[in-house]
């Protein structure tokens, strides 16, 4: 693996992150509907998290074991939220 593959242009990744920060702010303050604004803002946040995890935490070159360790609690959290939604949100 050459050096460019091992270490991508971190400054370019940072520039994307800053651009996404600006896009996220724009989505929050431009006159979209509330639901659409929230959807866009969290989509942008997910994109930023993906860039940090993939390039800065080097997940793109990690083994399956690391993915399993990081992915299991995320799955548990999704299960927790799905299990609690009916009880908390719809029960008045």
């Amino acid at each position, binding site marked *: *693996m050459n050096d460019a*593959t*091992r*270490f991508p242009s*971190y*400054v370019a*990744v*940072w520039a994307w*992150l*800053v651009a996404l*920060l600006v896009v*996220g*702010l724009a989505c*929050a303050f431009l006159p979209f509907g509330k639901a659409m*604004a*929230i959807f866009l*803002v*969290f989509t*942008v*946040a997910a994109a*930023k*998290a993906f860039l*940090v*995890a993939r*390039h*800065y*935490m*080097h997940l793109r*070159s*990690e*083994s399956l*074991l*690391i993915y399993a*360790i*990081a992915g*299991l*609690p*995320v799955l*548990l*959290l999704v299960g*927790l*939220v799905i299990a*609690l*939604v009916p009880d*908390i*949100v719809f029960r008045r």
Partner: protein
Amino acid sequence: MTTAAVAAGERIPSGKLAVWWFLASEIMTFGGLLAAFVLCRFAGGGWEDQAAHVNAWIAAVNTLILLTSSLSMVEAHRAVEDGSRGRAATFLLITVLLGLTFLGVKGFEYSRELAHGFTPSTAPFWSFYYGLTGLHALHVLAGVVANAALWIAALRGRGWAQVAPRVEYAGLYWHFVDVVWIFLFPLVYLS
């Protein structure tokens, strides 16, 4: 060990594995709190009125600071891989200073909100606000301490060969703290 070596199927260093296990527990800690915030917000009314009082622009500046600190941290890791102790020390120092700046801005934000009478007991939103951002700030502080220790080790040079791999581990933690803030920012300040 380099990231390339890991990709080639070599053993994962135990230190790195330990950091990932730790981060897995942190995902549950922050994830549980974030999920509780979202669910309580769906369940109860009046949150938007309270959330309107936080300053998104100050938080945006803090986001920029943290994103930039992630860049300097990963550059410190690259310097370690390149065998450049001096460059690693410089980038670690930049990361420490940016972390302290983040905490300073957060402190300013807290003082502003407390001066306006918004305490943790004002409303459920503020309980979550101080709980979530306070816990995050404590994690930033822990990262600053770890990075400062590595910076001192890099400056001294003695035993650096044994210490250098820890820059990658500290980096993983630091980037995780950044990822948490990436989700906290829209959740607390923009929605």
